[in-house]
C-alpha cells in the first residue's frame, strides 16, 4: 500500500472510533430488542386479563424502554454513515453485497419500528386498544427484524459467501443473495444475539422490581413487582440457556470458518488433538507463550468439533498456513484481547443467570423477598452483567476477525477512507466520545429516576370512540 506511513495513525483512530461508537450503540440495542417484546407481552397480559398490575407494569417498563430507545435510534444513524465516512474503501469493495441488507433493514424494519413506536407512544387512550397493542408488537417485530439484516451483513464479514471477486473492478460482487441471508454464521448469530438481548432485558425487569420489593416492603404494588421479578428471572434463565446452546453451535461453526478466531479465543498456540479447554491461562505479556494454565482435557475439542478427540488448529500453524496462502504478514489477532473478552463474555452472562436463579429461589412458594443488602446489590448488578457480556462478545468477535475486515478478502487497513485526514478523524472521535459520554450520564440518571419512581397510578380509560372525541386532544406524550 502506498501512503502507509501517513495513514497508519488515521487508521488507528478510525478503528477506535468504530469500536467505541459500536460498543456504545450496542449498550442500547439489546434493551430495545428484548424490552420491546417484554413490554408487548405485559400489555398483552393486561389486554387478556384486564388485571391492572399488568397495565402498570406496561407503562412503567414502557417508559424505561423509551428512555433507552431514543439513544439506540440516534446512535444507530452514526453506524450507517460511518461505513462511508471512515471506511470508504471497504464500502467500495463490498457495497454490491453489504449495502443491500442495510437498505432492506431501513426499508423493511426501521420504518416499521419507528412509525409504530410513534403510534404506541402517542396512541395511549386514543387508538382502539387492540390497535394500540398491535402497534407495540409491530415495533417489536421491526426491531427484531432489523437485527437479522444487520447480522447478515456482519456475518458476510466473518464468513463471506454468495459472492465472487471481480478482478476487472477489484470489487466483491454479489452472486447469490439467498446465500448471504442464509449464511450459516448469520443463522446462528441471530438467535445468539437475540437471546443475549433478552438476557439484558430480563435482568432489567428483575433489577428494578427487586429494588422495589426490598426497599418498599409495604407497597400496594408488591404483587406487580413480584410478578415482574419472577417473569424477568424466568426470561433471564431461558435466554441464558439459549445463549449457551447457540454459543456452542457458534463455536463449532467458528472452528470451521474462522479457525484462527477459535484458537485466539483459547490462546491455543499449537494444533492439538484432543485439545483441552483453558479455564485460566496466564500468558507472557506479549501474548506469545503461556506461563500458567488450568485446563479441562478434551473440552475444547468437544466445543470446537463436537468430538472429544477432534483436532483444533493452533495459532502458530494457522499463521504459517495463512502466510503461505495470503502472503507474508501477521494474520493473528491480539491474543490477550480475544482470550479475555471470550471469557468475560461467558463469565458475565453466567453470573446474571446465577442471580436470576437466586431471585427465583428467594421467592419460591410465595415467600417474601428477604430484606437482604446482598440480594439488593446482586439484583442491581444484574442488568450490568449481561450488558458487559454483550459488549465483550462483540469485542471478541470483531477483534478475533482481525487483521481482516472481510475474512480472507480484505484487510482492515485497506478498508479505511484515504481522503479522511488524521485531524478529521480525531475531531470526529473526540466529538462522538464527548457527546456520548454526556448522554450516557444523562440517560443513566433518567433511568434511575424513573425506575425509582415506581409503577404509575392508572385510571383505566374507556375504549376510545371515534364519535365522541371531537373535543378530545391528541394524546400528549412530549
Amino acid at each position, binding site marked *: 500500500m502506498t501512503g502507509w506511513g501517513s495513514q497508519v495513525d488515521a487508521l488507528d483512530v478510525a478503528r477506535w472510533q468504530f469500536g467505541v461508537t459500536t460498543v456504545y450503540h450496542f449498550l442500547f440495542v439489546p434493551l430495545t430488542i428484548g424490552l420491546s417484546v417484554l413490554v408487548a407481552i405485559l400489555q398483552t397480559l393486561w389486554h387478556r386479563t384486564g388485571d391492572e398490575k399488568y397495565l402498570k407494569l406496561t407503562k412503567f417498563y414502557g417508559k424505561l424502554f*423509551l428512555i433507552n430507545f431514543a439513544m439506540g435510534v*440516534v446512535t444507530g444513524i452514526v453506524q450507517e454513515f460511518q461505513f*462511508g465516512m471512515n471506511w470508504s474503501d471497504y464500502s*467500495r469493495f463490498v457495497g*454490491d453485497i453489504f*449495502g443491500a441488507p442495510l*437498505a432492506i433493514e*431501513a426499508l423493511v424494519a426501521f420504518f416499521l419500528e419507528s412509525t409504530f413506536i*410513534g403510534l404506541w407512544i*402517542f396512541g395511549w387512550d386514543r387508538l382502539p386498544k387492540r390497535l394500540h397493542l398491535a402497534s407495540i408488537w409491530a415495533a417489536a417485530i421491526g426491531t427484531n427484524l432489523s437485527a437479522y439484516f444487520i447480522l447478515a451483513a456482519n456475518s458476510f464479514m466473518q464468513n463471506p459467501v454468495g459472492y465472487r471477486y471481480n478482478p476487472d473492478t477489484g470489487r466483491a460482487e454479489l452472486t447469490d443473495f439467498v446465500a448471504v441471508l442464509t449464511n450459516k454464521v448469520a443463522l446462528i448469530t441471530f438467535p445468539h444475539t437475540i437471546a443475549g438481548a433478552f438476557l439484558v432485558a430480563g435482568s432489567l425487569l428483575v433489577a428494578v422490581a427487586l429494588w422495589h420489593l426490598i426497599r418498599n416492603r409495604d407497597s400496594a404494588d408488591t404483587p406487580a413487582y413480584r410478578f415482574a421479578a419472577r417473569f424477568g428471572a424466568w426470561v433471564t434463565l431461558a435466554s441464558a440457556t439459549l445463549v449457551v446452546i447457540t454459543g456452542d453451535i457458534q463455536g463449532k461453526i467458528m472452528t470451521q470458518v474462522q479457525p484462527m478466531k477459535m484458537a485466539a479465543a483459547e490462546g491455543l498456540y499449537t494444533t492439538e488433538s484432543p485439545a483441552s479447554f483453558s479455564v485460566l491461562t496466564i500468558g507472557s505479556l506479549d501474548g506469545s507463550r503461556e506461563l500458567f494454565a488450568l485446563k479441562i482435557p478434551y473440552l475444547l475439542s468437544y466445543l470446537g468439533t463436537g468430538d472429544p478427540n477432534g483436532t483444533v488448529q493452533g495459532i502458530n500453524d494457522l499463521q504459517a498456513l495463512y502466510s503461505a496462502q495470503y502472503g507474508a504478514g501477521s494474520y493473528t489477532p491480539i491474543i490477550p484481547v480475544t482470550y479475555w473478552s471470550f471469557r468475560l463474555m461467558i463469565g458475565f452472562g453466567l453470573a446474571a443467570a446465577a442471580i436470576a436463579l437466586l431471585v427465583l429461589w428467594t421467592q419460591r412458594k410465595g415467600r417474601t423477598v428477604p430484606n437482604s443488602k446482598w440480594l439488593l446489590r446482586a439484583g442491581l448488578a444484574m442488568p450490568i452483567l449481561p450488558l458487559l457480556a454483550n459488549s465483550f462478545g462483540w469485542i471478541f468477535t470483531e477483534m478475533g476477525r482481525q487483521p481482516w475486515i472481510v475474512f480472507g478478502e480484505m484487510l482492515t487497513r485497506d478498508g479505511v477512507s484515504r481522503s479522511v485526514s488524521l485531524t478529521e478523524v480525531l475531531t470526529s472521535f473526540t466529538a462522538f466520545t464527548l457527546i456520548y459520554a454526556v448522554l450516557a450520564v444523562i440517560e443513566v440518571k433518567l433511568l434511575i429516576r424513573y425506575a425509582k419512581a415506581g409503577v404509575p397510578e392508572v385510571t383505566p380509560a374507556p375504549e376510545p370512540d371515534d364519535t365522541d372525541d371531537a373535543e378530545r386532544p391528541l394524546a400528549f406524550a412530549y
Partner: protein
Amino acid sequence: MELTTIWFLLVAVLFTGYFILEGFDFGVGMLLPVLGRDDKERRVMINTIGPVWDGNEVWLITAGGAMFAAFPEWYATLFSGFYLPLLLILLALIARGVAFEYRHKRPEASWKRRWDKAIFFGSLVPAILWGVAFANILRGVPLDADHEYVGGLLNLLNPYALLGGATTAALFATHGAVFVALKTVGDIRGRAAALAVRLGIAAAVLAVAFLSWTLTIRSSTAAVVLAVAAALALLGGLAAALVRREGWAFTGTATAIGLAVATLFAALFPNVLPSTLDPAGTLTATNAASTPYTLTIMTWVAVFFTPIVLAYQGWTYWVFRKRIGVTHIPQH
C-alpha cells in the same frame, strides 16, 4: 428503463421524501424559540411532530442505505469527502432526537431550556448543511481518477453552496411555520401563519436565486420545468397561507420543496457526483452503480415494500390529524 436510472430515481425520491417530511420537523425545531412563547406553546409545537419525526428520519436512513446498496462508489466518495459537514449533521441529529424524548422527563426550567437549545441547533444545523451538501453535489467537487475527494473543507464552503444552505434553511423554516399553523389551535396558529408568510417571501427570493444559479451550472429541460413549477408551488402556498387556508399552504410548501429537490436531481442526471478536477473522476449513475444482479434484487424489495411503508406511514398522519393547543396540555 435502465436499472441504474430506476435507482437514481429511487434515491431521488427518498431524498425528496426526506426533505419534505423532515423539512417541517426541522422548521418546527428552528422556530421553537420564535413561536413558542412559553413552555406550554413549545410543548404544543414539539407534540405536533412528536408521533412522526422518528419515522420521517428513517427516510434519510433508507436514502443512505439505498445509496450504499445501489451506488456504493457514490456513497463512499460522498460520505468520506463531505466528512466534517456530515459529522456536524450527525451530532445535530443525535442531540435533537434525544431532546425530543428527554425534554419533558424532568420538570425543571433549566433542564427544558437546555433541551430547547438542542432542538433549535439540532434542527438549524442540518437544515443549513443539507443545502450546502446538495449544492456541492450539483456544483461538483475535486475528485481524482480513483473517485477520491481531494478538496478540503473550505472547498465545500463556496458562495453557491452557502446560498444553497440559506435556501434550505429558509424553506424548511417556512414549511415548519405552515405546519404549526396547520396543526394547532389558539393564538399560536395565527402567529405561525403570519410568520410563514414573512419567512416564505425570504425563502422564495433565496430559492429563485439558488435554482437560477443551479441552472447556469448544469441544466436540462426537465430541470427548468421543475424549477419553475417549484417557484409557482411556493408562491401558491404563500398565497394560501395569507388567506389562512393552512391545508393548501402546507400542500404548497411541501410540493415546492419536493419540486426543488427534484430540480437538483434532474439537473444532476446522469451524473451523481461530478468532478471539477479530473473528468475521469466524475461519478455517474452508471460507473458508480452496483451490479445488475444486486440492483434487480433491490428493485423487487423496493417494489414490494415501499407501498406498504407508504400506506402505514400515511395512516399515522391520518390518526394524528387533529389540531392541538395549549388548552389540551396536561399539568405535568
